[in-house]
């Protein structure tokens, strides 16, 4: 009997631990990675020729990062590693991948999706200006390129990444104009009982905030942002306007803003595989359904890491192991020695408690999103306004997000709704006067990212199979 064909998509913490375990069980998994080297976004490696040490790059997580990189590099030929490769469709029991202009169809018996997350975004007026970047982008510029996104940077949004990136900028010698958190001042106390599940991580967070205070960085909570301001020429960021209690506005001057409201799961492949999704009220987003080990509702599909639940990097390593063990069990193969499924499940539950605590401490400001002014560019790909999206409901009676997309093109652009979809659903729901879950979610579409036409034409069977 031929060896089972197992594919792992993603080589971050979840994908790496899954691949390690599958290889230890005697399989030779294929690992599809959009990156040039393993590590994912959180443990992204700097390019060859850069000299900063792991401590400088990853701070308190240096040990975990180097361990994960070493594990992956040590797998060598025990896996079939496909770097710089995009997984862009799932159809008929096969994964469709593309590297440069070459497309391939990879049939599988089991597919483990560990594609991570992106920043969850609020399309504030002015967010398309040069100098406005996602928080993740601000971190990547520093970590992978030793650059700051500007000379005087505001960090705006909510979630642990807000404080982490700000502190990394301070350490690297960049000037941080302010850290503006939209979470109400009392919110973190609400999250505390659940976040106490991971006291060490909580302590790390407290240290970060203390470092920012010592550095004299302005930090505000309960911020209501109005817009990102442009300079006189309209060509770059010049400040962030926030509401004042008396109904006025205060401007915080800066030449760059890093913004993000925690994370959103990168779940398109699970969607294309036919997985069921559920609305997660804690994080206020739709997530693919999975059992405690990561089995999705579609046969042969397994989910791990932030693309399934935003558990963070440590949680992703655990989820990657659990999902790999589930793959082995379902294929009727023995687990490698020393794997304690019950202990891993318990650890995952701890991570999930913390996740729910974070969602309380750093809530998504749904009301702010729903009330974005009509002139706001919600869809940055095609410059579609909040007003146009609202009209798709008020004038054309779109009942949910996919119809609103068809009417307005919001979410139809090149990013496929990654940066406007969650906010768009809030706007549609508010316009209809229904809860956000009733506005649905944008369905994933293949290709999940733009492909060169040559990549498809190159392989006639690809075209045939996706017709």
């Amino acid at each position, binding site marked *: 009997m031929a060896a089972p064909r197992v594919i792992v998509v993603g080589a971050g913490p979840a994908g790496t631990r899954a691949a390690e375990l599958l290889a230890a069980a005697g399989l030779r998994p294929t690992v599809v990675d*959009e990156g040039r080297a393993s590590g994912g*976004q959180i443990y992204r490696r*700097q*390019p*060859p*020729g*850069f*000299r*900063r040490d792991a401590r400088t790059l990853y701070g308190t997580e240096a040990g975990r990062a180097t361990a994960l990189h070493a594990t992956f590099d040590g797998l060598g030929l025990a896996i079939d590693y496909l770097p710089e490769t995009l997984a862009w469709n799932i159809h008929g029991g096969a994964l469709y991948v593309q590297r440069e202009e070459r497309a391939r169809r990879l049939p599988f018996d089991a597919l483990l999706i560990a594609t991570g997350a*992106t*920043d969850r975004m609020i399309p504030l007026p002015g967010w*398309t*200006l*040069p*100098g*406005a*970047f*996602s928080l*993740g*982008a601000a971190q*990547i*510029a*520093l970590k*992978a*390129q*030793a*650059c*700051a*996104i*500007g*000379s005087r940077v505001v960090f705006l949004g909510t979630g642990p990444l807000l404080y982490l990136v700000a502190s990394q900028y301070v350490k*690297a*010698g*960049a000037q941080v104009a302010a850290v503006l958190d939209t979470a109400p001042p009392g919110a973190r106390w609400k999250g505390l009982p659940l976040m106490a599940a991971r006291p060490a991580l909580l302590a790390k967070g407290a240290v970060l905030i203390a470092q920012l205070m010592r550095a004299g960085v302005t930090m505000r909570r309960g911020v209501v942002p109005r817009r990102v301001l442009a300079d006189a*020429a*309209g*060509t*770059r960021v010049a400040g962030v306007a926030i509401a004042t209690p008396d109904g006025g506005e205060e401007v915080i001057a800066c030449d*760059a803003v890093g913004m993000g409201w925690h994370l959103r799961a*990168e779940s398109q492949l699970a969607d294309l595989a036919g997985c069921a999704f559920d609305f997660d009220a804690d994080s206020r987003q739709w997530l693919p359904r999975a059992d405690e080990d990561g089995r999705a509702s579609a046969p042969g599909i397994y989910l791990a890491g932030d693309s399934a639940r935003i558990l963070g990097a440590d949680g992703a390593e655990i989820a990657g192991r659990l999902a790999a063990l589930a793959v082995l069990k379902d294929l009727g193969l023995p687990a490698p020695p020393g794997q304690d499924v019950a202990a891993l499940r318990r650890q995952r539950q701890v991570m999930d408690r913390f996740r729910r605590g974070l969602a309380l401490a750093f809530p998504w400001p749904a009301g702010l999103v729903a009330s974005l002014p009509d002139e706001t*560019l919600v869809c*940055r*790909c*095609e*410059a579609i306004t909040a007003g146009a999206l609202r009209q798709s409901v008020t004038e054309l009676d779109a009942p949910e997000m996919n119809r609103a997309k068809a009417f307005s093109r919001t979410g139809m*652009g*090149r*990013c496929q709704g*990654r*940066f406007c979809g969650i906010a768009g659903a809030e706007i549609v729901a508010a316009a209809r006067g229904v809860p956000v879950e009733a506005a649905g979610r944008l369905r994933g579409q293949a290709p999940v*990212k*733009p492909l060169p036409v040559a990549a498809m034409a190159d392989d006639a069977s690809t075209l045939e199979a996706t017709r």
Partner: protein
Amino acid sequence: MTAHPAATAPLLRRLGETHRAPVAFTIDGQPATALEGDTLLTALLLNAGALRQSEFGDGPRAGFCLMGACQDCWVWTEDGGRLRACGTPVQPGLRIVTRGAPWPPLG
């Protein structure tokens, strides 16, 4: 009509790793220098204030996510090729255009 993207001051600020070898390329025909290991996005935004003009007429753009998700950093080469700047390493001799790109202007 807004000023063309490269006409404004550089957007990014380099904080270190300056020992790397220089790489020569051009932006709208003007010579520019980056360092080996810079992405094309880094190389462009250390020399210019934006990457391109939005094809929908709403002004200049300079990328957003830097992780290949937002698709906002595609730039054109002089010979009509398209590159996602955040994931493409800068190469010696690359010739990038940030204006007059072969895209039909609207409005």
